[in-house]
Every structure is written in C-alpha cells, then in structure tokens.
C-alpha cells in the first residue's frame, strides 16, 4: 500500500483512505477516499445515486465503521471517539427529528445533553430559532410542520451545540425548487456566520456549484476530483467529471503538431501549444464557449467547422442549438435576442483554442 500523505498544513478535517465494502457486495461502496478541508470551509460531495456519498459521510460521522483509513478532526484522531463525544452535527436525509418532543426540545436536546442549565438553554434555543426563522413554532409538534420547517428544525438542532463539523446528507432533496434555493442560501449564510466547517452531500450539481467552496465528485465509490467549483467546471480531471458537471461536447482527437489536433472526419482543430500526446484522446468544449456564425463569411476556414442546425430549443433566456458537424452532434448556445438560425441552415462554429480541454481516453 502507498504511504499515506500527511495532512495539509491548514487541514481541519483530514480524511485518509476511508474504505467500506458492505458484506455481499462485489465492490467497495467507498474506495480509499481522501481529502483535506480547511476550517470554516464548505465541501460538497457530489455524485449520482448509489455512488457512496452517504456511506462516506456516515463513516466520517462514525455511524458506519470503516474497513480502512482514518479521520482526524482538529488534529485529533476520531478512530475511537464514541459518537456522543465527536462534536459533529448531522442533518439526516430523513431529518431524524424526535417525534415525541416539540420544536424547542428538539433544538435544545444537544444542549441538555451537555448539561446546560435550563435558563441558559432556553435563551440559546430562542437564538437558534430566530436564526432559522422558527421563533413562532417553538412549541409545535414535529408532525405538525411542513417539510421546509422540519428541515430548518433539523439544521437548528445540529447547529445549536456549535459543532466542530456539520454534516448534511441531501438536506434539500425533499423540498420544492423555490424553497430549495432559499434554504440553500440560508444554510450558506448560517455556516459562514457561525464559521462552522461543513460537508454536504448532494446529487444536484447546481447546488454544489453555487453553494460550496470545494466540490468532491464521486463515482462508483471513488473520489474522481476535488477542487473549487471553477476547477471542476473549467478544468475537469477526466471524462467522467467533464460529463457529470454541466453540458459538454466531446470529440476524439489525434495530436498532429504543436497547436493542432486532428479530429477524424472533421479536420484540424486549434488546441493549446503546450498540449502533446500519443494515440486518440478526447477534446472537450463547453456549449457556451462556441461561437455560432451564419452567412458564409469564411474568414478563417481552418479554425471553424461547418455544419447544419438540427434543432433549436428555448431554455429560458437563451437557446440551445444542436448542430451536426460531419458525424458529430455539437451542443451550442445562443443568447435570446440575437439573430437566430433556422433548422437546416448552414452555420460555422468556432471557439478559442484555450477553451478546448484535452482529456484522457476516447469519448
């Protein structure tokens, strides 16, 4: 086994090689997951259903014993720390609110366990309820709350003890779009305000991109890439990440000479000068990087590829435009209000060489 890399100097949460294979399963649910997270930062664990996000989160929380690897929080090895001493707040996907207690008692439960005297506790609970806009619901029963209210109670309960680490398992999955966006902003504001380090699981890429400081993209139990939203979107590490985040066009390409690659049945495409490889690789271009031109002013025929519009669809504020170029179907975008091509019209596509990303493997 490779030697373990020491934690980064500013790492608050340090996760190394966490592995879990459920009995009777052919492959690990989580395979040697490693990352570091700085204090006060928010990491989104992003991946499709069944890729092991919940398992990884539960291993960090101590709810699932890992088969290998370790977790350190604030320099302390969490290996043998019992649940009630971990100082981790968790919002479960099902919220896991105590049905036999009212809202205030739910929120105050952690403080009560800490042994905080009732008067002090009531004040702290009231403050948490105000922060989460629940002050009018303090003595409601849990079953008499809406989904969004329950979610806020779960959040208030997890934050009330001022945990060192906040873990959120798809907390917004059960909410409608409007409420989801509002809650997303609220969680982010609370997290920044209380300066709590936070890990949240989601399968919604927009949520991850817009909310988190860092994103870890998971697939089949493996963390594929970890980085800032810009990194992940602009500089995906591999074909999987590029395809998972946002929309993208993929073209097979052979390196031809510095600055140029050959796409079979299409011709030469400009690439960055420093790129160089052997065999077939994949070129990635985001739809919004592509310029669509109409009317044959072929100023730079070499850089552009010519194709025919196959489909045009309005997506709110902009149009998605599919163009067939040789054997390839390219996704492009057009601003609403610009001159639009019609179906079947001939158009030229071009994009700056630095917007082309070279990825390992064939498309």
């Amino acid at each position, binding site marked *: 086994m490779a030697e373990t890399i020491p934690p980064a100097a500013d790492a608050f949460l340090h996760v190394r090689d966490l592995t879990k294979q459920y009995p009777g399963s052919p492959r690990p649910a989580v395979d040697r997951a490693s990352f570091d997270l700085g204090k006060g930062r928010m990491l989104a664990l992003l991946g499709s259903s069944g890729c092991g996000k919940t398992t990884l989160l539960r291993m960090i929380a101590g709810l699932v014993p890992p088969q290998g690897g370790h977790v350190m929080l604030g320099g302390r090895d969490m290996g043998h720390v019992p649940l*009630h001493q971990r100082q981790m707040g968790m919002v479960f996907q099902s919220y*896991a609110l105590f049905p036999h207690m009212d809202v205030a008692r739910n929120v105050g439960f952690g403080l009560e366990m800490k042994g905080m005297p009732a008067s002090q506790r009531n004040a702290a609970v009231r403050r948490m309820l105000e922060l989460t806009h629940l002050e009018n619901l303090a003595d409601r029963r849990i079953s008499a709350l809406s989904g969004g209210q329950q979610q806020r109670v779960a959040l208030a309960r997890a934050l009330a003890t001022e945990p060192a680490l906040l873990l959120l398992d798809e907390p917004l999955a059960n909410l409608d779009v409007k409420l989801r966006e509002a809650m997303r902003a609220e969680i982010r504001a609370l997290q920044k305000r209380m300066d709590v380090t936070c890990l949240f699981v989601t399968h919604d890429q927009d949520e991850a991109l817009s909310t988190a400081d860092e994103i870890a993209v998971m697939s089949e139990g493996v963390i594929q890439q970890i980085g800032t939203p810009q990194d992940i979107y602009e500089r995906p590490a591999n074909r999987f990440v590029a395809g998972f985040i946002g929309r993208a066009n993929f073209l097979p390409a052979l390196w031809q000479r510095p600055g140029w690659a050959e796409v079979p049945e299409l011709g030469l495409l400009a690439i960055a000068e420093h790129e160089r490889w052997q065999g077939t690789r994949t070129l990635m271009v985001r739809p919004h990087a592509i310029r669509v031109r109409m009317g044959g002013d072929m100023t730079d025929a070499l850089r552009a590829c010519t194709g025919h519009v196959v489909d045009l669809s309005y997506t709110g504020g902009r149009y998605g435009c599919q163009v067939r170029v040789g054997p390839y179907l390219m996704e492009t975008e057009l601003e609403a209000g610009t001159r639009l091509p019609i179906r079947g019209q001939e158009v030229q596509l071009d994009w700056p060489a630095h917007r082309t990303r070279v990825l390992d493997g064939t498309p």
Partner: protein
Amino acid sequence: MTTRLMHRMLLLPGLVALVVTFCLPVAWLLHMSFMPEPDSPPGHAAISFHAYAQVLEDGFYWWVVWQTVRIGLVVTCLTVPLSFPIALFLSRSTSPWRGTLAALAVAPLLTSTVIRTYGWMVILGRHGLINRTLLGLGVLSMPVRLDNGTFATIVALVEILMPYAIISILGGMGRLTVELEQAAALLGAPLWKVFMRITVPLALPGLLTASLLVFVLSISSLVTPQLMGGGRVFVLSTEIFSQTTQALNWPLAGALSTLLLALFGSVIVLYQRAARRLEDPA
C-alpha cells in the same frame, strides 16, 4: 346513503358473531350471578343478590382478588422488561437469520399451555432438573421446593406470556428508528441517555399494549395457576373453576366472573387513558 347502508351491512356478520359468541354468554353469566342460592327452595325469588353479598362479606374473596392482581402485576413487570430486549434485537437485526429468530421467539405459541406448564413442572419439580443439578453439584443437600406455589406460577406465566409481549412490543415500535438514536448520540447523548430519552419513549405504545395484554392474560389464566400452584395458589380463575366444577355454586361463580370482567374493564379504561396521553402529550 346507499353506500353507507352497504358499509353497515358489511359489519353484520362480525356483529352477529360477536353477539352470539360474546354478548349472549356474558348476559347469561350476569343472569346466573343473580340467581338464588343453589339449595334454596325453588320459586323463592327471581333475582337475588346473595352471591354478591357472599363475595363482598367474605374476606377470603377480597384476598383472592388481591392475589390475582398481585400475580398479574408481578408477571407484567417481569415479562415486559424481559421481552423488550428481545423485541429490540429482532427489530434491529439485519442478519439473514432474523426471520428464523423471530419465528423461534413466537414458536412456543405452537404448543399448548398445558404442555408448557408440564414442562415447567419437570424443570422446577422436587426431582426436577434444577434440584437434581444443584444436588448433583453438591450445592444443596436437600431438594428445595420450587414447584407448587406462587413462585412456580409466576415463572411459568412469564415464560408462557413472553411471545405475546414480544409481538406487541414489535408492533408498537413504528416510530423508533436507528437513525433517531444515532441523531441523539451525535447530539451528545451517551448510550443510557439515548435509551431512556429516545428508545423507551418511542417504544412506549408497544410497551403499553404488551403490559395490557400480559396483565389481562395472566389474571385470566387458569391452567397455569391450577397446575403450577398445586392447589396452593388461589386466584379468581381457579376459584371460579372450583365453584363451577366442585362446589357447583353457579351463582357464586357468576358473581366472581363478573368481578373479573369488571377488573378487565377498569384495566382497559386505564390503558386507554394512558394511550391517549401518549398520543397527545399536551
């Protein structure tokens, strides 16, 4: 209108069965308890409170009622706590043997109470398993009496009633999930606090139902106190039995049965109060 009528019609078969098998016998029982003494001259009086007067005046019957309630309470207080861990284990287990284990837990219901009671006689008897083992090991020099008494009755009743308790506890744990306990633990609750603040309160409906069932079944049991008591345990059911089969004093047996019914009724009222309080803590 017609659909409502149809719904009521659907109740009819059950209602008929209830009237024939429950209401009529109970009415007959009540009627019998108001009959005059068996050896009084015929045509004396249509209705007599003699049997009730006899029950209320005789201190022995008060003692029997107390004995019945006491055994019922002790059996309940032993059976429910002993069944709770088993029910918890069964509800948590993810092992492929779970189904088998659950079946094993209720398997004793497949054998008759008489046979299980005899089984306990074999274990607790003067020359039974326990005495022989202890004598053989030299712990005892003389066999101790474990059978024929209240102790033996309670032991056997607890074992016989545990399957019922396990089933009703399992049925009443719907709101209790492992996730709730994990949430409490992460909020700083050590194991015993998780148990007292989350596990027990959320299992309470099941515990309550189990208590009711075990109590009612234990105060109405006849075979076990009769056989395990060895004629030394006097409870309402054994008393009713001997009045009907030996003393042939049917009015007295009827009055005692009515007393037992009243006892059931008051326990059920208590249970419903507690259940309502659970549902609406305010």
